[in-house]
C-alpha cells in the first residue's frame, strides 16, 4: 500500500543522513552542537545588537568615502572596519543588518513551510490510504519543479520584495517536511500510547497534536534547521540574480551581486558578505546535525 518512491525517500534522507553516525565519542557530538549553536547565537546577537555595534547607518551614503578598503588593508581605517561599498555605505553596518534579513528569511520560511509540510505529512502518515496517495502525489509534483526556477519566475511576475520572497519560498519548500513527517508519523502511529489514546476516545486532532507531534518533534526540529539554511541560501541566490530582495536593503546575496562589477580590484566586497553567509549556514547546519544526534541517538545508520 505504500506509494512512496525510493527517490522521495532518498531525498528526505540525503541531507539528514546522520553526520556523526558511528561516532561513539559523545564529546564530538556535543562539540558540533556547542560550536554550531554558539556561532549561531553569536550571529543572532550581532544581528539584534547591530545598532549598538556600529555607529553608521547601513543606508547612509558618503560619496567622499567610496570603496574604502577594510582595516587589514594599508589604506583601511578603523573608522570603517570593513570598509565602505561603492556608494560609500559602511560595510560592517550592512553586513550586520544583512544578518537580520537572512535570519528573518530562515525563520519565517521554516515556519510557513513547516506548518504546511507537517500538516500534510502527519495526515498522510496517520490516516494513510487515499489521503496518503494524494499527499504523495502532491509532494512528487512539487519536487519535479526546481524551486529556484519557480521562485524566480514567480518573483519576476509579481515583483521582488522581502515579503514576496518569504511567502514564495514558504509556499514552495514544504516538501521535505511532508516526506519526513509522513514516515516519522507512520512509525509512531503503530505504537502503544497512540493506540491507548485512540482507545480512550481521543479525537484525531487530539491524537495528532497530543501524542504524535511530541514524538516526531526531533525530526521536525532537524528538518526545520535544514530548511531554514536552505531558504537563506535560496534568498541569497535570488537576490544575487536580481530577483529577490531589492536595493537598498542589505541582503548578503544582493551585496555580492552589487560587488560583482568591482571584483577585480575590490574582491573583499564579495568575500565579506560571502563569508558571512557561509558562516551562518555552517553554524545552522552544524547545530542541526548536533541536535539530530542528540535527539535521535538510535540514528538510522546504527553503529
Amino acid at each position, binding site marked *: 500500500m505504500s*506509494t512512496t*518512491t*525510493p*527517490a522521495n*525517500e*532518498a*531525498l528526505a*534522507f*540525503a*541531507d539528514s*543522513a546522520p*553526520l*556523526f*553516525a*558511528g*561516532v*561513539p*565519542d559523545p564529546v*564530538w557530538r556535543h562539540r558540533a552542537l556547542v560550536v554550531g549553536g554558539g556561532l549561531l547565537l553569536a550571529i543572532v546577537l550581532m544581528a539584534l545588537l547591530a545598532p549598538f555595534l556600529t555607529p553608521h547607518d547601513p543606508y547612509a551614503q558618503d560619496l567622499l568615502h567610496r570603496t574604502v578598503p577594510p582595516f587589514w588593508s594599508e589604506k583601511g581605517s578603523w573608522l570603517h572596519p570593513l570598509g565602505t561599498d561603492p556608494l560609500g555605505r559602511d560595510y560592517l553596518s550592512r553586513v550586520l543588518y544583512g544578518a537580520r534579513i537572512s535570519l528573518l528569511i530562515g525563520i519565517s520560511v521554516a515556519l510557513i513551510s513547516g506548518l504546511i509540510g507537517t500538516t500534510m505529512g502527519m495526515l498522510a502518515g496517520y490516516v494513510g490510504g487515499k489521503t496518503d496517495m494524494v499527499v*504523495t*502525489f502532491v509532494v*512528487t*509534483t512539487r*519536487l*519535479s*519543479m*526546481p*524551486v*529556484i*526556477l*519557480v521562485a*524566480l*519566475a514567480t518573483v*519576476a*511576475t509579481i515583483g521582488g520584495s522581502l515579503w514576496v520572497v518569504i511567502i514564495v519560498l514558504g509556499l514552495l519548500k514544504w516538501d521535505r517536511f511532508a516526506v519526513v513527517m509522513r514516515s516519522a508519523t507512520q512509525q509512531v502511529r503503530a505504537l502503544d500510547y497512540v493506540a491507548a489514546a485512540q482507545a480512550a476516545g481521543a479525537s484525531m486532532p487530539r491524537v495528532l497534536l497530543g501524542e504524535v507531534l511530541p514524538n516526531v518533534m526531533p525530526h521536525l526540529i532537524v528538518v526545520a534547521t535544514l530548511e531554514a539554511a536552505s531558504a537563506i541560501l535560496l534568498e*541569497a*541566490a535570488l537576490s*544575487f*540574480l*536580481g*530577483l529577490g530582495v531589492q536595493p537598498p536593503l542589505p541582503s548578503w*546575496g544582493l551585496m*555580492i551581486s552589487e560587488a*560583482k562589477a568591482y*571584483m*577585480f580590484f575590490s*574582491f573583499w566586497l*564579495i568575500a565579506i558578505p*560571502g563569508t558571512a*553567509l*557561509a558562516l551562518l*549556514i*555552517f553554524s545552522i*547546519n*552544524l547545530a542541526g*546535525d548536533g541536535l539530530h544526534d542528540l535527539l535521535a541517538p538510535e540514528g*538510522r*545508520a*546504527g*553503529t
Partner: protein
Amino acid sequence: MFAYIVKRLGLAVLVALAVSMIAFLLLRLSGDPAVALAGEGARQVDIELIRQTYGFDRPLVVQYAAWLWQTLQGELGQSVYFKTEVGPLIFSKLPTTLLLGFSALLFALLISIPLGVLAAIYKNSWIDRLCLATAVIGQALPNFFFALLLIMLFSIWLRVLPVSGSGTWLHFVMPTVALGYYVAPAFMRLTRAGMIEVLGADYIRTARAKGLPPSRVIFKHALRNAVVPVVALSAVQLGFLLGGSVVIETIFALDGLGYLAYQSITFKDYPVMQVIVLLLAVIYVLLTLASDIANAWLDPRIRVA
C-alpha cells in the same frame, strides 16, 4: 514487479499532467496574453481581434486542453523576446545543460564515493573527521559565491581558465565544479552511512572469514550494497543540478537552458519560461521513474510487494 511499474508509470503521467497545468497557469497569471501579443500602444480593437484569433476568449479549461494538445504535437509557440520558435530554441540549448548536469553529477560522485568509503573504513579516525569537516564546510558555501571564488582564483590570479562563454571544454571546468561540489556532501554522507551499516553485516564477516583480501571485501561485497541509495539519490540530485544550472550558467554565461531560463525570466518571455519549466519537470519525472524502477529491480522487497 509488473504491477509496481504500472503503478509508478501512472504516477509519473499524473505528475507530468499536473506540472503542465501549473506551467499553463503560470503563463496566464502573468497577465492578459492578448495585450502582451499586441504590444505596447495597441488599440482596444486590435487586442480584441487577437483575443478572438488566438482563442483567449474561450473558457480556461478549453484553452488548456488546446494548449496541451499543441504542446504534445511539438508546437511550442513563439518566443516574445528572441522572436523565434520556442521548440528549436530550447532544444539547441539543451545539450549544453545536459552535459553540464551529467559532468557535475559525475564530479560529485567521483569525489564523494571514495571519501565516503574512506571515512567509513577509518571510522572515528582523523581521516573520518577530515571528510566530515569538508562535507559540513562544502554544504555551507553558497554555490554562486564559490563560483566567484573559482573565477577569482583560476581566471584572474592564475589565468588558466576562461571567465565565461561556452566554446571549449575548458569553459565547462569551473561550472562543473561549482555546480557539482554542492551535492557531493549528501552523497558522501549517504555512502559513509551505508558503508558503516554494510560493513557490520554478517555476510561481510563471512567474506572476511573466508580470507578474502580486504580490498575485495570492500569493493566487491560492501560497496555494491552501500551505493544502492546513492543511485536513487543521483536521479533526484540530477534534477536539482538542472535547476541549479540557472544560477551557475548565468554566472559563467554558459549558453545552455539555465541561462536561457534566466534570460526568459528577466525579459518576461513567458512562452519560453513555460516550456523550460515543463521540460525540466518532465526530465525529472523520467529520471525518478528510471531510478525507482532500477531500485525495485535491485531491492526484492519492493519488487515483490
